[in-house]
């Protein structure tokens, strides 16, 4: 196992990694920017090293700054968290060049999975179903029309260089196609410097379901069940749960089997997530692989009892999985709600600020992952996630009641502070 791990991230995920390092007896250092000087992760870490000013590109996203920080604190491994450098294959290679372990997927695997067209082609070859669409870019409006009639409407025109919900337009029927095709290519060229687009069937009522996989470097692959992440705002997840509710019997098994097969095909190593769309008929389609620990990983931890960050560290250190697939026995239902400092009544506009009162929920079967505390000042330059509330219950109805109780308990106040809690309450009131 590693002697010192540098955490190259901030917020709740930095604290999450520090916690597991401490539990494993691994020395842990935290890289921080000047505005994160008083962070909860730093308080719990063995060492902290300032890597730059608030803007991420000079700090958390700066490969030289992170590498030099790792060297300065004698780290033999770097945990990138999520976001920032976590899915950057160049960074992973630089780590290797400097004799440090990047705690994540191998760079060549990340590179292949990061190219979405190539990833889809690879998974299709491995037998995973894809959403009907063009495998590659569409060059002309004529070609778009021809392919669109094969795919069927409604469909999406997506910029190849887009991501995170940007560069996507929906086409309801053939009469709209020409106009939207021209608009999307023009916007893509202006925004991403690359006008290439592709077409994909649009499923307005589909659910977003993802499967967690764990792969060691010795060819062992297990899945830890699925998570439903259908409750989103502005293409960002807000509520996740496991197991996925309201899906046809047997579907979860099919999704898991597809994810395990996909992980084998990709030569995946580490913790990773296979994202699928599931339509109302129970058909499912591979979307992409997230080659990182995800924000919603606690949902899986709670139903399986497996510490995913611990497994991530063990796999990165070359160890073997300690359990086989049939020793993974998920039980009950877990739900996670993301409490962000943003205003749901104003299109989820981020609302950084000073948290004068902060009382997280507690008690039976409630877990809170948060870097917040009374007096915490959320800087405006990063994402607005303040806390994740995760609950467990034997069944879904119990978990939903418990989540409502937990959110009722959560007290966050300060001048101008607004959170996603009222929105989460509204969603949880619906039977869904």
């Amino acid at each position, binding site marked *: 196992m590693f002697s010192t791990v540098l955490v190259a991230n901030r917020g709740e995920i930095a604290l999450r990694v520090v916690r597991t390092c401490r539990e494993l007896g691994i020395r842990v250092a935290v890289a921080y920017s*000047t505005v994160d000087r008083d962070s909860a992760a730093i308080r719990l870490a063995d060492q902290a*090293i*300032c*890597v*730059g*000013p608030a803007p991420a590109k000079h*700090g958390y996203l700066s*490969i*030289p*700054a992170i*590498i*030099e*920080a790792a*060297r*300065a604190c004698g780290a033999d491994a770097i945990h990138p968290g999520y976001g920032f450098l976590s899915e950057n294959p160049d960074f992973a290679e*630089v780590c290797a060049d400097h004799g440090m372990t990047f705690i994540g997927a191998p760079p060549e695997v990340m590179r292949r999975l990061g190219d979405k067209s190539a990833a889809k082609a690879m998974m299709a070859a491995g037998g995973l179903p894809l959403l009907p669409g063009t495998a590659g870019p569409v060059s002309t409006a004529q070609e778009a029309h021809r392919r669109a009639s094969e795919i069927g409407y409604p469909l999406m025109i997506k910029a190849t260089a887009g991501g995170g919900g940007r560069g996507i337009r929906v086409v309801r029927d053939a009469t709209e196609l020409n106009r939207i095709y021209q608009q999307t290519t023009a916007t893509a060229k202006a925004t991403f410097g690359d006008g290439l687009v592709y077409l994909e069937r649009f499923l307005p009522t589909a659910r977003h379901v993802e499967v967690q996989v764990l792969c060691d470097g010795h060819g062992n692959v297990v899945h830890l069940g699925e998570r439903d992440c259908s409750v989103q705002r502005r293409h960002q997840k807000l509520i996740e749960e496991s197991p996925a509710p309201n899906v046809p019997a047997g579907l979860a098994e099919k999704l898991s089997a597809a994810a395990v097969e996909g992980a084998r095909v990709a030569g995946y190593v580490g913790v990773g997530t296979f994202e699928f769309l599931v339509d109302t008929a129970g058909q499912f389609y591979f979307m992409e692989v997230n080659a990182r620990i995800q924000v919603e990983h606690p949902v899986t931890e709670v139903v399986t009892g497996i510490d995913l960050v611990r497994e991530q560290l063990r796999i990165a250190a070359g160890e073997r999985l300690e359990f086989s697939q049939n020793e993974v026995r998920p039980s009950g239902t877990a739900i996670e709600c993301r409490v962000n400092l943003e205003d749901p009544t104003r299109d989820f506009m981020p609302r950084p*600020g*000073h948290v*004068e009162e902060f009382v997280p929920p507690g008690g039976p079967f409630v877990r809170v992952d948060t870097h917040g505390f009374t*007096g915490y*000042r959320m800087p405006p330059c990063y994402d607005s996630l303040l806390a994740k509330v995760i609950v467990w219950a034997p069944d879904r109805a119990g978990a939903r009641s418990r989540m409502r109780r937990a959110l009722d308990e959560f007290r966050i106040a300060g*001048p*101008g502070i607004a959170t996603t809690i009222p929105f989460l309450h509204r969603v949880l009131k619906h039977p869904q």
Partner: protein
Amino acid sequence: MTLDGLADELACGKYLSQDRLQLLCVVSEIVSRVLADSPAQPGQLRVSAGDVAVEIRWPRHPARHTKSIPEEGASVAAIPVESANCWIRADTVGTFYRAPEPGAAPFVQVGDLVSPGQQLGIIEAMKLMIPICSDIDGQLTSVLVEDGAPVEYDQPLFAIAMVNTG
């Protein structure tokens, strides 16, 4: 400035409540008194009350790395002083060197007079050599980091006593 006057003057922010404004005002008042009563002119001052922090230094010419961060309306006038120490800080994480190469003489020695643009040292980050230059006129009073030691971003490297050029 009276407490009420300052509170009125600043009562424009819709997020700032009256009581917080008043807190800022009384902090400002205390700072003024402390400054008035201080037997010697301070070189640096930091005041915080709740979530509000004010940090001030008094060089005659503000230097690049010299920060003055008044927050949320509270402000205290800078008072000119004859001389004070100022820090030159690390622009990046890396390894600090005092000399252009191993065995060579250091760029500067304690006691040297330095001027803006003059190179004082090097930080190496991933084989890139980044020069550290002074941005003020003054006299080097100490070198705060060992040659070859790792430094973090914003870490003070050199202390310079500023010379009154006014």
